[in-house]
């Protein structure tokens, strides 16, 4: 049985958590977190996830053939926009 924090239930706190996080306020002194290790851990985890996401870099290399497909499509667009009458120029 986990000790119930004083003043606000975990359910009430977590219902507000999205707004609390996006407010940008420092939550370290929030009364609920002072007495609830479970919600403190939740907040820490969410921050860890957000921080890890910021470290993800665009490292995925597209396949080499993709450029060939783009090049081919560009040629098609070019020839269709030039029109049949200009082929005699």
């Amino acid at each position, binding site marked *: 049985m986990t000790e119930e924090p004083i003043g606000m239930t975990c359910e009430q706190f977590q219902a507000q958590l999205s707004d609390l996080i996006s407010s940008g306020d420092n939550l370290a002194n929030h009364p609920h977190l002072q007495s609830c290790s479970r919600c403190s851990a939740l907040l820490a985890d969410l921050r*860890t996830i957000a921080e890890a*996401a*910021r470290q993800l870099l665009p*490292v995925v290399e597209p396949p080499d053939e*993709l450029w060939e497909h783009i090049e081919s499509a560009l040629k098609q667009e070019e020839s269709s926009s030039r029109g049949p009458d200009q082929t005699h120029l």
Partner: protein
Amino acid sequence: MTYSRFSTNPPEPTPRPSAGRQSPAGQGVASAPAALLRSAEAEILAQAQAGDHIAFAKLYSLHKRRIYSLCLRMVSNVAEAEDLTQEAFLQLHRKIATFRGDSAFSTWLHRLTINVVLMHLRKKDLTVISMDEAMEPAPEGSPGRSFGSRDLTLSGSIDRLVLERAVGDLPAGYRLVFVLHDIEGYEHHEIASMLDCSIGNSKSQLHKARLKLRDALRVFPRQEER
């Protein structure tokens, strides 16, 4: 114009220095090498705008990883990501002459790509469905509240590949907002505008996405310990 100058593979530009995370504006920390690279890219851009196909190929090489990664993260499907990357660069080719430099080129291309992806998702109705789903009361299996769960917490660092996989497994609506906000650095008001939803909806979906990721990431170590 002739495409005879196109090589099989586009010429590789000088690699950009790793300057940590870049904002959507693509503006890294100012330094002499970075300034030189920006200057070189500006020259390539001007040439591409004038119709130089070799310069366009260089732009592709400069931006292909970022654009492909963005598409892949947004749709979580390799074939779709390739198609969308192709479409983004075709649109870039059509519109490049209209770029006036009001924002950084990378920002402009980034937004162009997001619009391509969102248009694709709207055609599939994925965005609408996911947004509606996200506003529904949490059913069983959706990102849960923590008050009834075991006190498992994530370690201080998360394996990049594990996180990438977990993001890819998110429902489309959650994934879009998470990618745009937490990975790409857009603000909620920008995401709301892109996705045609309220700011509150964007915040709500981001929170649910993080909760769902937490659930997913806490499972991985237990599975891999077996």
